[in-house]
């Protein structure tokens, strides 16, 4: 169900995300003060290559990590196996990557004319 490649991908994506998650939590605690607005979010992120790389790598890592996590839970708790399990893993990965990439693009470069 988990071969060495998937196991390593799970651990490597976790190692990549650990500092990114700490950064994300710090930004949330800072940004939530006084409430959130669209303008406030965009003023921080729009046109920023740094935020694009930060959240872009976060999205890629979380798509890998969550897909493998859902794979393990589906196998152990629901009994999904074989092709269905592989299909589900790829679906979660592709879905999160697609939605996440759209979100990152929207808050960084979509309104910046890129």
């Amino acid at each position, binding site marked *: 169900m988990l071969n060495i490649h998937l196991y390593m991908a799970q*651990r490597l994506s*976790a*190692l990549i995300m*650990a500092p990114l*998650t*700490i950064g*994300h*939590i710090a930004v*949330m*605690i*800072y940004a*939530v*003060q006084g*409430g*959130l*607005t*669209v303008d406030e*979010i*965009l003023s921080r992120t729009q046109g920023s290559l740094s935020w694009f790389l930060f959240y872009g790598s976060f*999205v890629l890592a*979380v798509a890998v990590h*969550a897909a493998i*996590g*859902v794979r393990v*839970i589906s196998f152990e708790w629901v009994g999904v196996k074989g092709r269905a399990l592989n299909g589900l893993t790829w679906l*979660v990965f592709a*879905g*999160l990557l697609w*939605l*996440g990439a*759209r*979100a990152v*693009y*929207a*808050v960084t470069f*979509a*309104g910046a004319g890129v």
Partner: protein
Amino acid sequence: MIRPHRTHPLWFAFLLHRLSGLGLALFLPVHFFMLSMAVSQPDQLGRLLRFTDLPLVKVAEFGLVFLLALHLFGGLRLMALEILPWNSRQKTLAGLAVAGAFFVATCFFLKAI
């Protein structure tokens, strides 16, 4: 009857890690979808963000940050156990993971209200 290993504190650490991960995986598509409206549908996103000003939603956000911090610290504990050459103090680390997650989520909550 509860099986013996399911009364062990580290089994709860495993369960919390798994359930927090599952919760985050379910939340992420919604989170991403909302953010993707920032430029195409800013008014709608603005309305959703104003919705987050409600006290009950603040409490739900506290829960989400708690899940994130719990999964982060639980994951760090897991990798420390797998990678570093130690095997004692596991219960202490598991307890610290929950305490740390609660602290982080409380910081968020206090700033949010």
